[in-house]
């Protein structure tokens, strides 16, 4: 294998994620993908906005949403966004161990978020009988928030696979772009959540 992906100490790169041609492609490609994701979530948000009052006699948003849990979830996800920034910061300094550590914290926070979301859904279903099938509002709510949750699951699987796969190899020009694209994706998940907590929960709580 003549292709050399190792980080060359003589000629240090500012950003190991964007040195190789493949790295640049991945970087642009992920951004382009996020452009498409914007429209995907825009469609889901728009559907939710259209159906948020269609409770069909079932529970309404004011009745079921609680601020505390959403606040905890928001803090978990926002903080995980910051920790991934830290991880990328250490990647740029070529410090693999610290990068893994901060990504590990990111994964931990992300899993915490997921646990809260699962608890939240279970709570709505058992305590309020509010399901995917109870009204158009229910369908739209679970679809929008569930799509976001699905993205979190994908992100977590991605991150854990990356961390395990590269645990023994250290940072090189082959896997740096992969970590970098994950971080971008993760920030985007956070962006979507900012709108979800604002549009779905906060606006749903305002009487």
């Amino acid at each position, binding site marked *: *294998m003549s292709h*050399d*992906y*190792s*980080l060359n*100490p003589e000629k*240090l790169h*500012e950003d190991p994620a*964007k040195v190789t041609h493949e790295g640049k492609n991945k970087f*642009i490609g992920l*951004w*382009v993908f*996020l*452009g*498409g*994701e*914007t*429209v995907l*979530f*825009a469609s889901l*948000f*728009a559907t939710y*906005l*259209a159906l948020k009052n269609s409770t069909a006699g079932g529970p309404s948003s004011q009745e079921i949403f609680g*601020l505390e849990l*959403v*606040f905890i979830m*928001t*803090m978990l996800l*926002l903080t995980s*966004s*910051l920790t991934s*920034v*830290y991880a990328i*910061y250490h990647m*740029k*300094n*070529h*410090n*693999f*161990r610290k990068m893994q550590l901060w990504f590990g914290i990111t994964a931990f926070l992300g899993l915490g978020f997921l646990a809260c979301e699962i608890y939240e859904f279970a709570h709505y279903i058992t305590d309020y009988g509010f399901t995917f099938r109870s009204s158009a509002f229910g369908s739209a709510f679970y679809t929008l928030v569930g799509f976001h949750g699905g993205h979190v699951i994908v992100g977590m699987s991605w991150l854990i696979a990356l961390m395990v796969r590269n645990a*023994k*190899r*250290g*940072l*090189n020009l*082959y896997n740096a772009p992969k970590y970098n694209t994950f971080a971008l994706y993760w*920030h*985007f998940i*956070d*962006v979507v959540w*900012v*709108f979800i*907590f*604002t*549009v779905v929960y*906060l*606006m749903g709580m*305002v*009487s």
Partner: protein
Amino acid sequence: MGENTNIEKVNSFERQKNREEMKRQFILFASMIIFTILAFLLVAWDMDRTYVIPIIIVLAVIQVAFQFFYFMHMKDKGHEFVSILIYGGAWIAFVMAICFTTIIWW
């Protein structure tokens, strides 16, 4: 294939630059947390919805701008094309939101 290259030799200029960047990121993060708390408090205080809703939407947009421009580095060089794409997506999202809140029901 590349060996484990846990290099500690990144030159000091880069290091300094990265550190300052990180400091700025942290300040931004703190302000995002404040915005979030503010938004939650506005709702918890049960104020008039005509004021609350525009304010929390503006707060959300600012937060998202921080995420894109600083956390995702959209302000940096080499992001000209991708920012056009994101603006495009945001514009479509805006148009869709307007449409679905105005002409779906009649």
